[in-house]
């Protein structure tokens, strides 16, 4: 028994993104981090493990640099680290095939990850994995705890904030919450450096990854805006409001 936490490494949200030759220039990204929503999944997984649920297995799928987020997860309490080594040109079918194979190999009954990752903001992985693994699924949760043989969770559903119950096995995707995220201490950081990372390739997991059905043609920067008009003081508001109608035609 155990909980798999899926962590995606993304450019830190404070990082500037520059484009050169029609591609995002990865070498210019100053800092890579665990995607913010995934951090809430990790925190909840560690709490469940502390209350007796079993091991926390941190899993990432990505290039060599992504192993850093596993070490960061170990520093706050992840027990096992699995790196599915793959380049970032995979389509959703391939990513989900790799991750579901990794979850199965780790024999986890619960999967937790962010509701979307801060790079593409897609949110395809959680529900897709649930369908492939034949698990239940609850999205946009802020808290999950054990309840009977299953789980109690708080989710933001289409009708509002709800307390729900669901059985095991289940995939949960996390929304941002008021939860305080634990920070690693020195001992945690030292121990994490020694923690072994299990590297798994697509071959190891018996997943075919040669033909991606989604290909990126190009990247570009958002169009630059011409400088705007600046006014000082509330006396200018009448003029600005009339410009919103006459010039911009938006009210």
């Amino acid at each position, binding site marked *: 028994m155990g909980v798999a936490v899926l962590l995606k490494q993304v450019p830190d949200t404070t990082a500037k993104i520059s484009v050169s030759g029609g591609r995002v220039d990865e070498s210019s990204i100053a800092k890579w981090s665990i995607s913010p929503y995934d951090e809430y999944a990790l925190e909840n997984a560690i709490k469940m493990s502390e209350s007796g649920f079993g091991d926390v297995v941190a899993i990432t799928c990505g290039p060599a640099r992504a192993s850093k987020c596993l070490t960061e997860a170990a520093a706050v309490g992840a027990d096992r680290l699995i790196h599915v080594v793959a380049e970032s040109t995979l389509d959703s079918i391939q990513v989900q095939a790799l991750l579901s194979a990794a979850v199965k190999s780790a024999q986890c009954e619960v999967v937790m990850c962010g509701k979307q990752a801060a790079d593409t903001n897609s949110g395809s992985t959680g529900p897709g994995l*649930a369908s492939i693994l034949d698990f*239940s699924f609850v999205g946009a949760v802020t808290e999950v705890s054990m309840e009977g043989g299953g789980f109690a969770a708080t989710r933001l559903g289409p009708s509002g904030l709800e307390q729900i119950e669901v059985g095991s096995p289940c995939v949960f995707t996390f929304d941002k919450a008021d939860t305080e995220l634990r920070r690693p201490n020195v001992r945690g950081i030292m121990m994490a450096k020694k923690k072994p990372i299990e590297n798994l390739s697509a071959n190891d997991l018996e997943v075919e990854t040669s033909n991606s059905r989604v290909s990126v043609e190009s990247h570009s920067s958002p169009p630059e805006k011409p400088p705007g008009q600046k006014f000082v003081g509330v006396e200018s508001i009448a003029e600005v409001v009339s410009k919103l109608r006459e010039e911009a035609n938006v009210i």
Partner: protein
Amino acid sequence: MKTSVISESSNGSLHPVTAQLVGAASSLGSSITVVCPGGIGSTEAAQISGVSKVISVEGECFETYDCIAWSETLAPLVEGDLILSSSSAVGRELISSLAAIKGIPVVQDVTRLADGFSVSRSIFSGKAIEEVNISAPCAISLRANSFEASRGGGDAEIASVNVSQDVSVAVKQALAKASERIDVSEADIIISGGRGMGEPSNFSYLNEVADVLGAAVGASRAAVDTWEEIPHSMQVGQTGKTVTPNLYIAVGISGAIQHLAGMRSSKYILAINKDPGAPIFGVADYGIVATWEEALPVLKEHLSEMVSN
């Protein structure tokens, strides 16, 4: 070519984004079937021009939102070269699960769709734009207000189907109702407040201006993180929502890189801030250097006058 559109509903009726999904599919010259989960809005969907068939899927499982039960019920009824949904939270979950069941790729929150399929989407919450080619059959979710809506006047056949799958999610208690106010991700006009608003209760001044314009009320990450009264669902920017309204009004928001990424593609931006050096003025079409206390009552008065004319 055949497209299945998963309809979007809100408060028991068809959400207007559904007509935009139909509009996007029509522009590709596709034959279009609209599939209505829970049968909600099927009569309205049949009246959208360009729709050839509506499947009203009625079943017990649609009484509670359970993504897996819903997608398994819908999957046998959804077919074609292209499956479209809205990129709302439910739309994204359903289409991800449907794509996984069918073994086809999914690309989310697309803002341009052309033959092939060639699509555009913003990445890093608007810090860059990505052009992607996807081979059919595939599933794509579209961002609200990025596509021309198909008009009314249609008269499609409605097929009612009563099917259901087991629900594994049980709602024990409703803790808070979904906000009645329009969501930032689908509003034409947004007025957002930052930590410069001083107190969460001062967002009532933003609500008043929003009421005049029929606008949504948003917030910066700093405001959401500082005050628990300001829910995360209001957050604009990275780790919140990326928005592209016609008019974005930023009040007491200095303009952190994460916030600018999420709102800089708005058609017009009006910034009100007491600090003339605030970075928000760098992306604003109209900037007013003033405190919100002074500015908002005057803004409300002039907007009311303008709107009533």
